[in-house]
């Protein structure tokens, strides 16, 4: 995964490390982000993704490691010298300025003449469909409009890099979907290299060209959304992606078979014996008849009709397992259920959480 | 608008040119005192600014000198002024001529902050021929250890002021008889008070100052006036020691106790509240106090027309009597009656850049002519024997009767602190928190701490 060399990465992080006192927020992170790429940093809160973003922006100084943007070592540069733009989770629109002044601020500090500034702001604002709000103050426009204004401010001075820090988390669900498409479209259009931090796997998958999944300050996996989804390299990654996430059932590997609580599944490839996790996505399970061979026995936990699909949750041993059924009808179920696995779709992880194969 | 600005600029330029011109040749003298035109001691400002300074500047001009005198008004309290002087003098600043209260001199001298006239100006100070009109007692007011630091504006005496109208109403004096009341002993004084209390219960018969609220007024108008009546002073001038414990002190304290605690002939509250003195003046003006021991400025300034406590028909309803000793002949130096004098005046700042001119100004202000001018504004006992109290027979009469009997405070650095302890001692008795014995004990303890046990008399 580190096959790309420094030369073909537009943003390059080398051994990037950040300590806050005794806490290691970012731990020896190496990344290559290509020019024009939409790159997402995904992970649970506290995993170090925002810190990584802030290191790229220059808002934090790394404890160790180097940062390159466009081939230039920017590690010791202050933010203004890096020519980046950032959209914050709370948008950070200044309450005392109108949208015009807010959006035009990066131009103002660059000494752009007022007339040119207004023209450029208007251009960007028209593009983002907030041109008629420019005289208002942030408190006088809606959340979605604030979000667009914040994006406009990032766009206005044509930076080399966009940095987004969970820019959609303050929007309601409907707006969020709209904004997703809008941002993705916009990024394609302007073609600026983008680093996008989010904890929402769906958002990351929907928008990014590539994703880096971070846990505890380290990068667990980098790849295209589908690659990461299809072939998670660790239990953590597997459990983080997908909604609902991958089911993980603890058990043992014995002679080419996975032995779980009350079931055995033959495996296509042989693996060394020992404790292991069986990973299977909810859409790769289906309901079976009682006593069908290889069926996993469980107790019914909940049935959730979602419209185009039905989500069935069952208790298997100590864990709950989700099954996604692509049906609009509610299945008639008793207390006991049997789940059937597609053996070609299973993922195996060793006791340390690493993918086997 | 622009024209106005232009004019302003021209004005400023002109002023600074004049300023430059002045600084080259003109000698600038400054005088300060606790006085503000239209406020505190307004008459002093009027006298200096309207009369003395123009005349002096003219006189100097005739001698070919350009001198400009400025009066710096000070509006704060006496304590604040004293503090200002101390700070000023400590860092070598301050006005060339400073209004000073006589009893501050020893304290300032001990700190090396003030100097005698002849040390500042030189021995030629004594060449002034008018010294012969200024008697030693007047030189002592701003003097210390035989040295003279300045010249006093005058001196004062203390008496009992009483309301004739109340006395007539009570039948002590027959109305229109012209008879004057004069007690010969404390007992007579107290009996008059007792009688007034019985006949006119709404009137406070006698107020004699006590407590720290009254400050130096307690020491001068209160404590000394009683203590001197027992035959002793606060300080024994022969042995150079302070009286710490003495039967006289006890007698004086018991007098206070009789007046304020035992017989309630006076109102202790009025002595102890903030603004005690104003309240007292107010009560006297309104005819609520029959007898009040006060200095002569009570007559010439407090009760005088134009004051807020003015009694319109002052000369008809107010009269005065001398303060008697405990018994006839039992007073200080065997006197029948007692009084004490103090005074304020002007000293030279040892840091003055123009000692010669400053001394000239001082001499000029204390010339007979200028003092007579002041006398027109405010008749009182002046420092010069050739300046009589004119225009106010009451003042003249007081001076005549009491100046031979008067004494002064001990001019010693420790005096202000001991004076405060004396005020505190009277307060403790009048507030009823200590017996006279206990109060004297505490007083003795305190003054031993101030001057050392070897410098006190305990009898």
């Amino acid at each position: 995964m580190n096959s790309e060399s420094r030369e073909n990465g537009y943003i390059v992080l080398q051994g990037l490390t950040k300590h806050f006192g005794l806490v290691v927020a970012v731990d020896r992170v190496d990344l290559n982000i290509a020019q024009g790429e939409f790159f997402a940093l995904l992970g649970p809160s506290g995993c170090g993704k925002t810190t990584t973003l802030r290191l790229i922006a220059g808002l934090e100084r790394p404890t160790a490691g180097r940062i390159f943007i466009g081939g230039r070592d920017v590690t010791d540069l202050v933010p203004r010298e890096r020519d980046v733009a950032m959209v914050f989770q709370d948008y950070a629109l200044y309450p005392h300025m109108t949208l015009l002044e807010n959006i035009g601020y990066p131009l103002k500090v660059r000494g752009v003449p007022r007339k040119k500034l207004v023209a450029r702001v208007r251009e960007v604002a028209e593009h983002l469909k907030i041109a008629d709000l420019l005289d208002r103050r942030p408190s006088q426009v809606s959340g979605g409009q604030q979000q667009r204004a914040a994006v406009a401010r990032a766009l206005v001075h044509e930076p080399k890099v966009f940095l987004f820090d969970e820019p959609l988390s303050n929007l309601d669900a409907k707006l969020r979907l709209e904004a997703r498409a809008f941002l993705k479209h916009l990024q394609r259009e302007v073609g600026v290299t983008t680093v996008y931090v989010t904890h929402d796997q769906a958002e990351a998958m929907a928008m990014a060209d590539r994703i880096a999944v971070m846990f505890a300050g380290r990068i667990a996996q980098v790849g295209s959304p589908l690659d990461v989804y299809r072939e998670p390299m660790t239990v953590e990654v597997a459990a983080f992606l997908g909604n609902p996430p991958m089911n993980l059932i603890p058990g043992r590997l014995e002679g080419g078979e996975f032995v779980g609580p009350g079931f055995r599944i033959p495996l296509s490839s042989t693996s060394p014996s020992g404790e292991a996790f069986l990973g299977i996505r909810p859409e790769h399970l289906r309901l079976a008849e009682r006593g069908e061979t290889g069926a996993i026995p469980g107790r019914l936990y909940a049935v959730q009709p979602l419209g185009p699909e039905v989500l069935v949750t069952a208790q298997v041993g100590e864990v709950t397992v989700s099954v996604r059924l692509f049906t609009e009808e509610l299945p008639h179920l008793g207390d006991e259920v049997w789940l059937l696995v597609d053996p070609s779709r299973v993922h195996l992880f060793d006791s340390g959480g690493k993918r086997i194969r | 608008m622009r024209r106005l600005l232009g004019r302003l600029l021209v004005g400023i330029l002109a002023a600074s040119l004049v300023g430059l011109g002045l600084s080259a040749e003109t000698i600038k003298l400054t005088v300060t005192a606790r006085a503000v035109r239209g406020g505190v001691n307004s008459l002093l400002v009027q006298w200096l600014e309207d009369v003395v300074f123009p005349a002096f500047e003219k006189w100097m001009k005739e001698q070919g000198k350009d001198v400009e005198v400025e009066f710096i008004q000070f509006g704060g309290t006496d304590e604040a002024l004293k503090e200002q002087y101390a700070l000023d003098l400590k860092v070598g600043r301050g006005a060339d001529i400073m209004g000073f209260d006589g009893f501050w001199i020893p304290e300032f001298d001990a700190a090396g902050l003030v100097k005698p006239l002849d040390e500042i100006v030189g021995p030629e100070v004594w060449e002034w021929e008018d010294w012969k009109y200024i008697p030693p007692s007047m030189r002592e007011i701003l003097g210390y250890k035989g040295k003279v630091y300045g010249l006093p504006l005058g001196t004062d005496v203390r008496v009992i002021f009483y309301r004739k109208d109340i006395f007539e109403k009570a039948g002590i004096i027959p109305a229109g008889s012209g008879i004057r009341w004069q007690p010969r002993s404390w007992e007579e004084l107290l009996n008059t008070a007792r009688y007034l209390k019985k006949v006119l219960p709404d009137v406070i018969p006698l107020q004699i100052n006590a407590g720290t609220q009254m400050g130096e007024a307690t020491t001068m108008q209160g404590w000394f006036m009683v203590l001197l009546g027992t035959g002793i002073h606060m300080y024994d001038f022969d042995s150079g020691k302070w009286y710490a414990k003495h039967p006289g002190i006890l007698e004086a304290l018991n007098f206070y106790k009789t007046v304020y605690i035992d017989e309630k002939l006076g109102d202790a509250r009025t002595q102890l509240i903030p603004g005690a003195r104003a309240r007292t003046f107010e009560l006297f003006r309104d005819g609520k106090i029959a007898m009040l021991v006060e200095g002569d400025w009570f007559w010439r300034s407090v009760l005088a027309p134009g004051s807020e406590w003015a009694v319109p028909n002052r000369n008809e309803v107010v009269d005065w009597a001398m303060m008697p000793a405990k018994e006839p002949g039992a007073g200080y130096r065997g006197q029948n009656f007692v009084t004490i004098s103090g005074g304020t005046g002007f000293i030279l700042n040892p840091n003055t850049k123009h000692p010669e001119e400053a001394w000239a100004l001082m001499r000029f202000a204390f010339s007979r002519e200028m003092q007579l001018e002041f006398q027109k504004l405010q008749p009182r006992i002046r420092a010069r024997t050739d300046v009589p109290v004119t225009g106010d027979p009451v003042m003249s009469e007081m001076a005549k009767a009491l100046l031979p009997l008067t004494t002064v405070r001990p001019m010693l650095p420790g005096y202000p602190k001991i004076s405060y302890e004396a005020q505190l001692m009277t307060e403790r008795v009048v507030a009823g928190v200590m017996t006279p014995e206990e109060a004297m004990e505490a007083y003795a303890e305190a003054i031993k701490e101030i001057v050392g046990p070897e410098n006190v008399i305990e009898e």
Partner: protein
Amino acid sequence: MAFLAPALLFIGVFLLFPFIWVLIISFTDTALTGPSAANPSFVGLENYYRLFNASRWMRAGEFGNALRNTLFFVLGSAILGQAPLGLAIALAFHRKKGLVRELVFSVATMAWILPDVAVAFAWIAFLDRDFGTLNAVLGAFGAKAIDWYFEKPLVAITLFNIWRGTAFSMLLFSAALGNIPPSYWETAEVAGANAWQRFRDIILPLILPHFLTDLILITLWTFNTFTPYLITGGGPFFRSETVSMYTYRVAFKFLEFGRGAAVAVVMMAINLVLATGYLLSLRRGRAWR
């Protein structure tokens, strides 16, 4: 950081430096007038010894008396007066707008910001025995006139200080309450808590840090305030003399700065103890955060 430099300079030059100077002269007989002014000498702990001379410590006009008065004054006016009253006003008008709130807040704030000398005169008039407004009001209800400044001087200045300083607590608590999300109140309300329970269980724990901050500041200010001196002068007979007035009297009556400095150092130590106590409880109070 360059932003901090001017403040550090000011604080260093005008606070720390004079303080060190005060500390040094507290061991000398430095005075502005009198014999020791010419050449002050080191007197060791004598100034301190005189402060704590056991035989007369509690006598009127001595340090112990002033300390006892100060204790009453601080307890009465800051802790039992300003803080609860300020909180009460803030609570009463919390989430209310309008003329009444503006009026009450404005008059309370006026009392806080008007110049010392002016309010001192106003209060001399207000509590005067014969002419005072308060006695006139009490008289209208048939109460006997009280000679406030003579009989109850300490109560009088305590009352004055409550009047003078409540605005600060009021403004502080008002801001603190404004920062509590309304949902907290509403949750409790829905849960069936009455007004008192809501106050005790929700508001009080949330504003506890503010309460302690408020107490630190108003205690220190009240401890050091000099304004009541303009009203009673510490009298009558030192019955309303607080420690700051005592310092002033010792230092300025006879310009004995050595002694005055010793009192100032002791005052500082007392302030330090008070503040430390509050700070410790503040730390405990914030532990749950």
